[in-house]
């Protein structure tokens, strides 16, 4: 094959590859575009909260004191859930939350790395000793959901799970102290 034709073919092949690369670029732009679009319009982010807290003295803190855990509804109606992920138990073991209303969940670990997800929802975060993990979400379906620890934290990791009761608006009634606990069934 004469060198000239050889030269032409090679550039033709590179052109097909470039065309393909352009197509790939379009697909990547579509994927990233969806991420960017939802981030800009409805603020979809991964949960991040660079808030340092000393895990060694967590039980001496006010916010994560034993009696302050669980769901509280503050004066202006914001729902905040505080829970501890500790070796081999979530405290409290049952969390009540309202449906279709913005909820902020805050977790902390006094010992090792834990992680949690709530089945069927987008609540998912690692709980790193040294930081307060915070997830803002809205529960779109009512019912009892499972909240397991999904990061290896020791021999009791498989038994570490809690229940989340997503209550419809009318049954989510905070007490006088603004706290809501699980309906005992």
């Amino acid at each position: 094959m004469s060198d000239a034709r050889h030269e032409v073919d090679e550039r033709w092949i590179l052109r097909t590859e470039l065309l393909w690369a352009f197509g790939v670029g379009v697909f990547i732009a579509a994927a990233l575009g969806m991420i960017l679009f939802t981030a800009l319009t409805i603020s979809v982010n991964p949960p991040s909260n660079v808030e340092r807290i000393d895990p060694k003295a967590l039980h001496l803190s006010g916010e994560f004191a034993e009696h302050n855990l669980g769901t509280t509804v503050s004066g202006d109606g914001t729902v905040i859930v505080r829970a501890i992920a500790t070796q081999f138990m979530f405290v409290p073991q049952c969390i009540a939350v309202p449906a279709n209303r913005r909820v902020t969940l805050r977790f902390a670990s006094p010992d090792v790395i834990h992680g949690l997800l709530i089945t069927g929802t987008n609540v998912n975060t690692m709980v790193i000793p040294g930081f307060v993990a915070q997830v803002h979400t809205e529960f779109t379906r009512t019912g009892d959901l499972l909240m397991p620890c999904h990061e290896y934290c020791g021999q009791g990791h498989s038994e570490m799970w809690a229940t989340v009761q997503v209550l419809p608006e009318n049954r989510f009634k905070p007490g006088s102290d603004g706290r809501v606990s699980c309906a005992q069934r």
Partner: protein
Amino acid sequence: MRNVDRLCLAHFWVAFGAFLFACLIGTWQMWVRSPLGANIGTPGQYFMSVTAHGVSMAYVLTTFFIMGFGYFVAVTALNRPLPGRLWAWAAFWIALLGVVVTIIPIGLGKASVLFTFYPPLTASAWFYIGLVLVVAGSWIWCVLMLVAMSAWKREHPGQPVPLAMFATVANAVMWLWTTIGVAVQLVFQVIPAALGLVQTIDVGLARTLFSWTLHAIVYFWLIPAYIAFYTMVPRAAGGRLYSDTMGRLTFILFLIYSLPVGMHHLLMDPQHGNAMKFVQVLLTAFVAVPTLLTIFTITASLEIAGRLRGGRGLFGWIAALPWERPMVLATGLGFVMLGFGGFGGIINMGYGMNAMVHNTSWVTAHFHLIFGGSVVIMYFAIAYEIWPRLTGRDHMSLAPLRMQLWLWFVGMMVMTLPWHWLGLQGQWRRVANFNYADPIIAGWGPWVVVSLVGGFVLLISALLFVRNLAVLHRGTVVAVPRALYAVAVHPPKRVPAALNGFGLWNVLVLVLMVLAYGFPIAQFLIEPSPSAIVHRVR
């Protein structure tokens, strides 16, 4: 075979020995966590097994296979003896010593921290020291690959380095870059804690340093499969490589974009802000480019082969391909698994969408399909292709080889497809025994049994694989010398320095790492995270 066949065989047998062991305990794990194996085995045994399965598959099978295959490529692609052969044997023994030193504490239950270490949980110091030895051995291999290539380039000035060697050295350079993260974490944080020199550990920094390694290490495992795609599959199929330039570009893109993206493993971590998470998600999207380029280039190369063999029409070339050859069959099956695994991957990297699947069986399905599926099936195909060259004996018949590849494909698909569905339901990872009494978990039972069946099929395939190789050592059929590496449609005559070396790309990687990882790591040096007490597993 010039002076390396025993060196390569030693590496491959250690790799495939660890692989078979890991398949056995992997199947046991699948059984114990299924409804059929409820209440069998204790958490201690289960997490010991998970640690051993992870270390064997992720550190032993991969590192030894890549080293062995690298030596083979350095000798056959460059067509010159391996420089520093004694160093290569030293590296082998150091790495093997490291494996032994790691496996013993695991077996004694003193290292049940899984293969991805979860400080402040800390195992026996020997567990980490063993892994450092394995990495040290692999570093010696990297130097040997660089020396081999530069020696060849001195002897052939201005000529393009053969693609197989260029890719192997790209892999070595990437491995040198990425092991910095885990080396710093182990040497400065985890090993001092394991030795008891310090009582606390900065967990935020430890996870960030480990994430530095965590993604490029999977591309370190993946590149030998891509070397096979580019340099062996076209010839095995009877065609030509569609574009050599695109091959070089693919391995360069892997080197550049697999390094500054590790934080997509930390998307759900609280200790990093959204800003750097988004930067690394965007860069992760570009790490899909080389794979998508490869799919096109290799499919085009197969199309050439198929049409040369008389394939007509738009897809007639597919049927015309020589599917009876293991390398071609493995590529076809590997691409299907790469498709499913890749789909799992782009969902994982979906920034906020990661919250839907992080640490669920969806992720387990992703890496079993891509590493366990398309990469390991190409490891099989490479082994089948080069064993005759190493042992001088040829396969009696290709049927058992094809059977083994099909079993691996079917087993992997049956095991991992249910995991995608379970992952979306919220099935979380690393559970010794599920509470099948819980209504939500009870619904998962049948699917776990289906994936268990896939696990058994994989075990049979693994046993058959080792049998197919072992048989060759006593085989009677003398190997007929056949050329191995593919020829490109336009073999490169002169190649820009950028496509023949890594100077430019190392500079770009340095800049990318500073921009992508600079702040996330500096954040802990400026203000360390509150330290956590070390919890020793002894």
